[in-house]
């Protein structure tokens, strides 16, 4: 852990030290800082807050929201909540997997795209829905996937 990262973690520790039930909130903030929860930083946080390593690992692996590995540059969240599911959410996932060549939950080899399946993004009126780095694609059909991904690829200039 470099000094810069340590300073970031220290700020989180100062904020949550001595507060009840702080672990989950502190982990949220770690993820907010780094995009995922880096193990070394999490351990340091645990030591300073007096929380054992086992408990931190338990929480990180229990809750779906925490990522223990750095995701790709562009995070693709495909909704498979009920409303999206019955309107073809599952076929979107298949199409994405085909287009990117990785299964959901994995990052492409070039580190660009990370695909995750989520349960309800709260905009069921637009089902089926996919979100890429905050940009929402609603009422989506499989034939649009390729061009959407290509738009994001184009941002990289290749």
């Amino acid at each position: 852990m470099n000094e810069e990262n340590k300073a970031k973690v220290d700020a989180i520790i100062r904020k949550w030290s001595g507060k009840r039930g702080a672990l989950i909130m502190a982990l949220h903030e770690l993820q907010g800082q780094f995009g995922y929860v880096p193990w070394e930083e999490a351990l340091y946080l645990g030591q300073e807050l007096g929380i054992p390593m086992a408990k931190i690992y338990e929480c990180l692996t229990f809750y779906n929201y925490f990522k223990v590995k750095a995701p790709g540059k562009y995070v693709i969240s495909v909704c498979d909540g009920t409303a999206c599911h019955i309107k073809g959410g599952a076929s979107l996932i298949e199409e994405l997997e085909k287009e990117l060549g990785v299964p959901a939950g994995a990052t492409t080899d070039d580190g660009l795209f990370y695909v995750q399946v989520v349960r309800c993004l709260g905009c069921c009126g637009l089902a089926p829905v996919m979100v890429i780095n905050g940009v929402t694609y609603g009422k989506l059909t499989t034939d649009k996937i390729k061009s959407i991904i290509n738009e994001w690829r184009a941002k990289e200039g290749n």
Partner: protein
Amino acid sequence: MVEMTPEQIEKLKAVGRMQKDKLLQMGKDFTANNEKYDATIFTCNATSCHSGGGQNVYEALKQALETAGLSERVRLVATGCMGLCAAGPMTRIEIKGRKPFLYKEMTPDVAHLIVEQHIKPLLGHPEMELKLAPHLQEKELSMDLPFFTKQRRVVLKHLGSSDPEDLGEYVANGGYQALIKCLFEMTPEQVLDEIKKSGLRGRGGGGFPTGKKWELLAKAPLVDGEKFIICNGDEGDPGAYMDSCILGGGSHAVLEGMLIAAYATGATSGWFYVRAEYPLALERVELAIKQAKKAGILGKNIFGTDFSFMAELRIGAGAFVCGEETALMMSLEGNKGTPRPRPPYPTEKGLFQKPTIINNVETWANVPQIILNGADWFASVGTETSKGTKVFALTGKVKHSGLVEVPMGTTVKEMVEDVGGGTSTGKPFKAVQTGGPSGGVIPAKELNLPLCYEELKKIGSMMGSGGMIVMDESDSMVEIAKFYLGFTVDESCGKCAPCRLGGYQMLKLLTKIADGKGTHADLEKIKEIGSAMQKGSLCGLGQTSPNPVLSTIKYFPEEYEALLQDKDEKKGC
């Protein structure tokens, strides 16, 4: 903490009394300022419309008003959910002295045209008739649609017609006046009686009488000087977003409900537990707490009384089981969210081992309305045992998909055909699912079933938090059952065997059947496991997770039968 001297307390109370006057003045100031405008544009920026480009529409409207030099005369408001999410982003034009006008499927281009061709010509010309060019006309959404007229919006009343971030507007709409009424005109016992009399029941799904729950907490003694109340905003049901919209549309109503409960029960602090996946709701809860602290609505000796209360926000981390109250408390304490056995009930040993009550977002939002309008007013709507209104997220294959609030007892038929406008595919309606992964299906033949706690339970579903998914003829019930069971198996915390093992085995058998390899014996086994899970699981997740499977087997046996390998053989031979 250092004890305060009587003088210090008196000083604090004097500040509190001033803060109360200041807050009420905020409401008056808002109203006075609002009078100045000749028109208001309400544009929906709740999650669904926002995702569909609502923010761009807002920016375009703002720019168009500036260009037209109308910013001083027309108020532009980015509102909470207007309801008809499928037709979003929505924008409503209210010009003084005219009927409101609603636009659907807004784009930035249309926004500019509306300002130029709809608003600008009409301002200051009350006699002029509204004449719209065809490209604007086709964007009109009739406000006489049954989708709007069949609703009764109590909790959602101001969502689509106010600025969720404006405390003054909340007060101008009657906000915090229920709290003031409680603090200055009612004893805690009277507040409790009023809630009991109203017949309000938990909107999170279980339907436990709210007043009874509060009474248990009121009777519980303080432990180390503390008692807690929690707002359960961990809306994990996939396909349901009521709580997200209620919180996102301004969290003050929920906070006010919690404050009233705290006054009635003697609770010392409150906690919001909200899903991490709802950034807008989180932002608004945080803002409401901040505004309330600043205005003296949270803190010590609120409004100069002896009542003190604090509230904090905690963020969930994507575990469906945390919607269960004991698991939620485990999570709030900083642990993995696994449920614990009851008794002891949370009102005896809850959060941090102290007496606690947990109510759902929608339940809290109902409370100020009951205090303001009276228990009788609230109880005059609904059925014998289910009072008031209920918010549903009406989704799936329904034409008018969105967020709706209807009186309890509204029938499935009214919901699907009138409010929902029928199926979106034009194919015959087959079933609706309520209660998400904990609920069951209501088949088309039960169209006249009134939506209330008892009736839904009777047919093997449940009210749930308000997810309502419409399915048409093309949906396979076996697939739907598999989808839900797959979800709960994935979300099972693994603590108790019936849920952990039962769910897994049941899913294996169900998959076998769906793949056309199952037998009658497998189907029987599924029923047996389901029944064992219902009886033996530790918490609501395991107890209810067989429901989607068992209810589809009950109402659509032919779909299962058709997939069985030994379908032609007589059962039991």
